[in-house]
């Protein structure tokens, strides 16, 4: 849950990038950090294994200015995507305000996407939150692979697999090239802040 500090006139909000392993969650944050580091005052924090895989989370805080006189602090997190790290994924989800589900467009990753989304639903349930109510954006990542001869899931397939019931906004993106990374961020920030504004401010 976002923390509204009435004394400091500040709102801290938590947005988590969720999805299967090697799907591009960390790459999203790295791109944001590289592109906007002139506006981000702090270092990006990453806890990863020797093989460069996320072990606990990545963390990137930044300010986006004021709404209704309140300074808005956005805190971006990623979770470790590998199945075995569910305990840490659950910890990172604690107090989440908005989620970007980063789906992998590679055809061979179809099952992992579905399992990861189901896992997200279960983990949110452990905090009595519903995947149907929380601000959520689906990012179909690695769309740059469409131009190469690598089997990629079609948009229709991804929508049917992941978004048939959710009906969440979706964005085709490439975290590697940066295509639509900022748009994804803008979308989830706007949805999350609207939700906070309606409930807290």
């Amino acid at each position, binding site marked *: *849950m*976002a*923390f509204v*500090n*009435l*004394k400091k006139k500040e709102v*801290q909000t*938590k947005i988590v990038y969720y999805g299967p392993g090697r799907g591009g969650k960390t790459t999203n944050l790295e791109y944001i950090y590289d592109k906007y580091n002139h506006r981000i005052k*702090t*270092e990006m*924090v990453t*806890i990863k294994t020797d093989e460069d895989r996320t072990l*606990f*989370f990545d*963390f990137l*805080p930044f300010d986006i200015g004021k709404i209704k006189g309140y300074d808005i*602090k956005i*805190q971006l*997190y990623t979770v470790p995507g590998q199945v075995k790290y569910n*305990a*840490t994924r659950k*910890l*990172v989800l*604690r*107090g*989440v305000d908005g989620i970007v589900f980063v789906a992998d467009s590679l055809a061979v990753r179809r099952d992992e996407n579905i399992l990861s989304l189901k896992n997200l639903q279960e983990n949110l349930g452990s905090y009595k939150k519903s995947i149907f109510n929380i601000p959520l954006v689906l990012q179909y990542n690695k769309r740059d692979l469409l131009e190469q001869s690598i089997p990629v899931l079609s948009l229709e397939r991804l929508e049917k697999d992941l978004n048939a019931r959710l009906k969440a906004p979706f964005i085709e993106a490439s975290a590697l090239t940066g295509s639509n990374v900022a748009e994804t961020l803008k979308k989830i920030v706007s949805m999350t802040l609207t939700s906070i504004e309606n409930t807290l401010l």
Partner: protein
Amino acid sequence: MSYSLDQEHLDSIEQILLQDLFDIGIHCVFLIDMAGNVIASVDNGDIKHDIYSLAALAAGNFGAVNTMATMVGEDEFSLLFHKGQKENIHFSKVLGDFLLITIFGKEISLGYLRLKVGEAAEKMKHLLEPCIAS
């Protein structure tokens, strides 16, 4: 869990941090929730720690240690303390949902710090308990 703290609560929390902990010579103290949000902080102005990143890491760290405790059949590990060359960090749970983090140097003994943190945590408990909705 959701909670709501008004100006009066935040002032009282800051007063406890200042009088009970900061005045004994610690470098920095802050209260966070388990989601990693910073509720209140006080520091001596000399150190420039990024408390937002520290809060995120502390919440994750404490959550991981709690899970380890459960796995070995403990309710919790009550003492969580990291010792460095110049700076030490002490973590103390307040109720089930908040964490009091103290950064201090060599000039304060761990025993004394624990005593003072315990007193401050007890005061905060009374303040925070009525603010928790569920």
